[in-house]
């Protein structure tokens, strides 16, 4: 699947396209197929995303439901936060969160 990501213009936060808007959580990302460029052009023009781009990702079913896994490690680090500061990630209470990146 192809998903869209970028940064919030004002705050710089990593954000993911959820079909209607932008979420901080990669698991909210939706498959945009071939519509990525159109969506990004529109969202960039409206300043709802900064430096947006499209990436490959896959769906993974697990005990907590379906999760989205970006294909490249760089985007998995972006999705979680710095692996060396779990307290600053989106899953600070999950000791296994860092392993998901690798």
């Amino acid at each position, binding site marked *: 699947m192809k998903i869209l990501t970028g*940064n919030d*213009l004002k705050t*710089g936060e990593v954000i993911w396209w959820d079909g209607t808007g932008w979420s901080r959580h990669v698991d909210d990302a939706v498959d945009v197929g071939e519509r990525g460029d159109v969506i990004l052009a529109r969202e960039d023009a409206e300043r709802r995303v900064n430096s947006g781009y499209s990436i490959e990702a896959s769906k993974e079913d697990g005990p907590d439901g379906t999760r989205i896994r970006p294909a490249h490690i*760089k985007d998995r*680090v972006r999705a979680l936060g*710095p*692996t060396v*500061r779990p307290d*600053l990630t989106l899953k600070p209470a999950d000791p296994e969160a860092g392993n998901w990146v690798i």
Partner: protein
Amino acid sequence: MYLYDSYDQAMVDARVEEFRDQAQRRLEGRITEEQFRPLRLMNGLYLQLHAYMLRVAIPYGTLNSRQMHMLADIADKYDRGYGHFTTRQNIQYNWIKLEETADLLADLASVEMHAIQTSGNCIRNISSDHFAGAAADELIDPRPYAELLRQWSSFHPEFSFLPRKFKIAVIASDTDRAAMKLHDIGIQIVKNDAGELGATFYVGGGMGRTPMIAPMIRDFVPLDQLVTYSEACLRVYNRYGRRDNKYKARIKILVHELGKEEYTRQVEEEFQHLLDQGVEPPLAELERLRPYFADPEFTDGPKNVDRSDPEFALWVARNTNRHKHDSYVSAVISLKPLAGIPGDASSEQMHLMADLAKEYSFDELRVMHTQNIVLPHVKIADLHALWTKLEAAGLGAPNVDTIEDIIACPGLDYCSLANARSIPLAQRLSQRFAEKGRTEELGELKLKISGCINACGHHHAGHIGILGVDKKGTENYQLLLGGSEAQDTSMGKITGRGFDEDGVIDAVEKVTDIYLDKREDGERFLDTYRRIGMDPFKEALYD
């Protein structure tokens, strides 16, 4: 240390308001990101993996307690309670909001600091010896010359759009503590046979994807021609440096392609031309700067410390440097706690270091390119009290220049350019060697880790270097041996095929085993490597 005059303050204040307007126009959609990007980079604001990152300039790594307190306050007010001290003697914040950046810059300006020229193809922060003005072995304090060059290079209209970024280091001792020959221009203040002070120029060094050691192009430039000669070096580069390929745009490529002799010939020609142009500031300007760097009022006191406490004795042995006044030392505060993040300091730690500088070091601190902090002038009589307070705050690691004192770039945990993570390797390596009690046995061993070929972690110059690469979407690490960024500058050589994360940690242990097995009396790791060569290490790693 240098204090702003009304011109400096007015320039920095004006720049804050200019950026405030630029950021507002971006937020309102009146300029695009493509238009805004070079403007924010000129003010040190990058867009990194998780957020905007701001790099703050600390000229030649010198700051006072008021400034360090402000850096701590900024960490709390605009970031997440910490900052990262860098290999360019600067500090970076990782979680900055664009909408708050102008206010942050205004706070910085209130303590005579800024983020100007910490990015972009311009002359970056001038670096220097972190023991400048304190070291027993220096000829003269190099910082007035670094400050002169800082003022010359700030907002220099001719050098604001160079082919690539440009880094200058100034030192004044034969011991190189600033990686001087790995800079675009490295300057050593020297004395000639007639007893006159001058500058030796090394031009065209650097790390990155094409590491080169700068050749010396002139052994003595009179100090009243320092700026003019620098200008000549820059002019030739600005004219002929390659702008068609960013990977070949640094001055080291130009010097290499032209050859040292031809580059030098052109610089000398330009220099002769410039001598008639009145480029050089009057010597009175240098004399105006000098008093800012005058010695504090040192007083005599005990020359030795009681070393009966072995932990204190180890810290003194590892973390202090001989001072030009025999009742003082320079004390290094290690930002490499066991399994910690190299160079990171919390706001509480920054406040404490500021307070300790005020109490014990004439209100002065230095940032080292090795990502530690120096209190340059500590009375020997105060050392135990200082150490006790550092220990209590977790800042007393006795590991300077050991295998635990690892330089590591932010790597893939923070940096959008990185291919692999650096910090977790540093954490695991320091832990492994500390737990095995090998640190002391290994002695001086400089280990440096970069998460990509840009070499912000100086991996080429590590006695042991590690380079993170992307191998089909997974992290892989190359091992290098034999580098040095000291006066015996050398570039490390790659051992062979790379390793995964676990593998490279084992590999580092194997090469240290070979060193311990083969070393002769008094040899550091680097000395043994230079004597026996790569083969014994390769055999241990790959056979």
